[in-house]
């Protein structure tokens, strides 16, 4: 599954995209990322699955497009 990182989150991870395999759900994904990149704990993070913001834990499948988003700042 491909992960996308945007804005300051991409700075923390050092890259805008990342491949990841065998992650059951969005909560597990977030836990894994916070382990791999402890600095992410300093930020508010939104998760979008297939371009929809996920508010509760959601199952992930390999075809999903998963994006990690910092708070929006348009306008």
């Amino acid at each position, binding site marked *: 599954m491909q992960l*996308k990182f*945007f*804005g*300051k989150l991409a700075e923390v991870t050092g890259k805008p995209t990342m491949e990841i395999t065998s992650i059951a759900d969005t909560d597990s994904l977030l836990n894994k990322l916070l382990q791999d990149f402890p600095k992410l704990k300093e930020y508010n993070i939104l998760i*979008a699955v297939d*371009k929809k913001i996920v508010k509760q834990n959601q199952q992930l499948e390999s075809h999903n497009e998963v*994006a990690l*988003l*910092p*708070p*929006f*700042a*348009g*306008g």
Partner: protein
Amino acid sequence: MKMKETKKHKVFVQGAITPEFIAASIAKHSAKTTIGAHDIFLGQVRMDTIDGKVVQAIDYSSYKDMAEEKFHEIREQAFNKFNLTCMHIYHSEGLVKAGAICLFVFVSSARRAMAFDACKWIVEEIKANVPIWGKEIFEDNTFVWKENIK
């Protein structure tokens, strides 16, 4: 959500939104003679001072596929919620200098109350729900990530 129209409208504009672009957009509406009121919101890049350094420009980026989907949803919802004749949203991507326009929301209705309410609602929706970010760039080319306040 009722889907009144499925056509996607181009929202992102490379760089600043010019006054001439805005004028051309206003001029096009003179043929729509049921319109009595337009409300136009323009976001302009401020030359804020942050920790002693002065913002020279904002570099806008987005999660473009999702942003375009969100803009489309906002458009559909606005037409369902308000009695509008037409509406247009334009947002910059890339570099916009301080003093230039980065957001242009244009709402038209037969009467003013609807135009005002809809324009304000649309701007709040954009700020809350569209995945766009901006780097506020200083004279020395360092930057901070923009944070939105009302």
